[in-house]
Every structure is written in structure tokens, then in C-alpha cells.
């Protein structure tokens, strides 16, 4: 499943859209496949200021709980209530309806410094 062209990826498998003030964040198709069936999601509070690489959400599959990290520093501006109610959206549509939250980056350059999809996919091979 291809990501949007303006998605940038963190090594910890989150994606964030570049070029928008409120940037949407989710987890990669690779990550959702690795996790398997997602059964529970805990999202951060709107308005929370977060540091880059800070653990701010939890995704639980049948087998394990995994932390989700802020891909950049910024402020949480919205969370996806639909995915909190139906966590399987992360599996079925990781780049669409399975988005997790939006963040207003402190510095837009931080987003652009992350990996485009091709580089992210290449990093999975190594």
C-alpha cells in the first residue's frame, strides 16, 4: 500500500505529512503488518506539547503493546476519534482513515528532515 507522496517517515515507523500546518501522523503499512490485528489505541491529549521521539501513544495488538513516538517536536492539535473507537482502521487503512493524530510542528524543517517513503522502505531492507 503506497503512502501519500508528501509523507515522511521516522525510523520508528511513524509517518507525518509535510507541507501542512497541522500535520497528520500515523504508522506505516509495514508497521501495521508487523503488529498484526490492532485491538486498542491510546492517543495523546489535544494541546499536549511533545518532544521529538517522545512516547506519546500506545498501540496494542493481540500479542503486545507498542509505543508510538512523536516524529517531530510540536503540539497535538487533533486526535482521530474514529480510530480510537475502531482500532482495526490502522490495519485496513494505515495511510487514510487509520491516521492517529495531527501535530503542529515547532519547526516545519524537522518534518522535511525525515525519510521519504523510498528511503524508509530501503531502510527496512538493511
Amino acid at each position: 500500500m503506497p503512502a501519500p507522496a508528501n509523507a515522511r517517515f521516522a525510523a520508528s515507523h511513524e509517518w507525518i505529512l509535510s507541507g501542512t500546518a497541522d500535520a497528520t501522523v500515523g504508522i506505516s503499512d509495514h508497521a501495521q503488518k508487523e503488529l498484526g490485528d490492532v485491538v486498542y489505541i491510546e492517543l495523546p491529549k489535544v494541546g499536549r506539547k511533545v518532544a521529538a521521539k517522545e512516547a506519546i501513544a500506545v498501540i496494542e495488538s493481540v500479542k503486545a503493546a507498542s509505543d508510538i513516538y512523536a516524529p517531530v517536536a510540536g503540539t497535538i492539535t487533533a486526535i482521530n476519534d474514529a480510530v480510537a473507537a475502531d482500532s482495526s482502521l490502522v490495519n485496513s487503512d494505515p495511510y487514510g482513515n487509520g491516521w492517529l493524530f495531527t501535530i503542529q510542528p515547532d519547526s516545519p524543517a524537522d518534518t522535511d528532515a525525515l525519510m521519504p517513503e523510498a528511503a524508509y522502505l530501503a531502510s527496512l531492507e538493511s
Partner: protein
Amino acid sequence: MIADVDAPALSQSPLLPAHLALGARMVPFAGWNMPVQYAGISAEHLAVRSSCGIFDISHMGEFFVSGPDATAWLDSLLTNRAASLNPGQGQYTLLLNEKGGVIDDLIAYRLDHDQWFLVVNAGRLDEDRTWFSQHATPGVSFTDDSPAWAAMAIQGPLAPQVFHAITDGTASLPPRNGIAKLSLNGTTCIVCRTGYTGEDGFEFFTPAADGPAWFQKAVAAGATPCGLGARDTLRLEMGYPLNGNDLSYDRSPLEAGLGFFVALDKGPFTGRDTLLAQKASGLPSRLTAIRMAPGAPPPRAHYPVFHNDTPVGELSSGGISPSLSAGIAMAYLPPALATPGTQLEIEIRGRKWPAESVKKPFYRKPPSD
């Protein structure tokens, strides 16, 4: 968010080629490289409840015990009454240490009057073999034959049809808990009408080299390949203990709620004195079934359990039940708290979530027509 694990050298199942061909996700389990899932744990779980699934259980151990004193010897080491079985019958039973704690839970099948077949857990196989060997006695021959066998569990309401298909209608399933030796394709196979899912089904033991072909034949006959993930959620819904989680060296089978499989009046067996003392003075704890209130995160092993703000234990197993869409768990608690309806709280990432003690099993099959 996903850690890589530097795994030590793992044992490989003889069914590995079949798993790779089916796109399984392999994980380390009890020293083995085993499939945790194929299409997805929930779908596999529900396939077993509604139709049929097949699991690789080749990591489990196969022991043979024979000789004129074999039955009496097993009755001195295991909790259930081996002597009560006729040839062709099997029973769930436990191997205890001297203080009444559980070394392993297993199924003992009486293949013939003086011949037994034991199926033990992978995680305790070495200890079991050592224990039995250390207790060797003249008149009893003990053999660990595990490497020779591929083993698969075929489980679900359609398992009998899959058995009929893979044996081309040439063999019959034994009755519940029964065992039969079959001559199939010129080899000896063993079929047992048992399982770990709460569904009808059978466990099938074949020569290791023939395993992949049998596994694929069962899949072609309609059995959904299922991994250890679904095996765990299925057994948890039934309240079946997982050794290493829900059974331990420090808890007796009475505390685990397995008194039905302990024949205290059959005569001496290892660990019996502790069980008699517990029976007389009361159990120190009880393995309690716990159901989370709606909306809670999945309960997991080692989460703390509270009652009236007092810590009372920790979860030994837990997860989201695919059949019930609810969090279910087990924990050793003071016996008074095992009473169904007792209000509890489970601490998950620093926050306490409401839960209550319930009756086992968590899941009951809807009545069939």
C-alpha cells in the same frame, strides 16, 4: 516501535517448509522457531470456533513409557489416576515437584496395557525428561522420542470432516480423549481426540519427514492454518492454564483449579503431602478468571491486581477475547476474591481499570441444533 530480538539458536519444526510456503510470521517460542500467525490472529481464532483450524505443535514432546510396572510408576509421579484408563484412553494430568508445585501439565494416553504415550510442553520438555529419568525404576522403560515426530492439532467443529478427508475415509477418529495408532501410507501415525481450544478436534502425530505433506493436505481439506497467537487466545477463552504463566513450580494444581485431575485417594505420588495439607488448612491462593469492564486496554501478564485499593496479586495471562470482544485474564488471588462478581481493578500503565471475578470458562459454545 518494533524491537529486533537477537535470538539464540532455535529448534526448527519439521513443518517449517509448510509454514514458509503459507507465508507464516515466525517467532521464537520456548526455544523453537514457530508460526505466531498467518492471515491474522483474530481471523484464525474465529475460524477454529466456526469451522476448523490447524496448528503446528511439533515443539511439544512425545515420550513413551512401557513395561510391566509402567502404570504403577506413572501413578507414583502423576496426579491423575493412570490405572483407571483402559487401552485407547487418555487423561489430562500433572507432574509435580516434591513441594506440590507444577513441573508440567500433560496428557497421558494408555496405548496398550503396558504402554503409554505422553505429550508434554516444549518449555518443560528437558525438565520432564530429566525428572522421569532420575526416577527410573526396573520394570519401566522410558524414551523421549520427540525428534522423530511431527505433530499438528486440528481443531474446530469441522475437524472430523478434515480427518475423514486427509485419511481418505480409511480411518476412524477415537472417542473424546481417546488415542489410536493408525497405519497410513505405510507409516505409523498416532491420532488423539484432544486439544487446547475447547472445540472438538484431534492431535495428529506423524513421522517428522512426512509432516509438511500432512499439514498441506489438511489445509487443502479446509483447515485454516493457525499460529501460536490464536492458540493462546483460544485456550485463554476456555480458562485453560498455560504452563510458565498460569502454572508454576510454586503453585499447586489445587490452587490452579485443577483438582478434578488430582486423585488424592489413589495412594502416594510426588507432591501429594502438600496437596493434602492444603486441602486440610485451605488454599493459599486460587487461579481466578477476571473480566475487564468495557473500554479497558488489553490486560496482560504481570499487570498488578487491586481489591479495595489493596494490591492482591498480578495477572498470569491476559488478552482481548476475539469471541467476546472483551478483556479477559487470570491471576492467583486470595481465595475469597475468586468468588464471581468480586470487584477488582487492574493497573495498566499507571491507571486502574475496573474488572471483576467471573466463572470459567470465559467462553461457552452457543448450543448447536
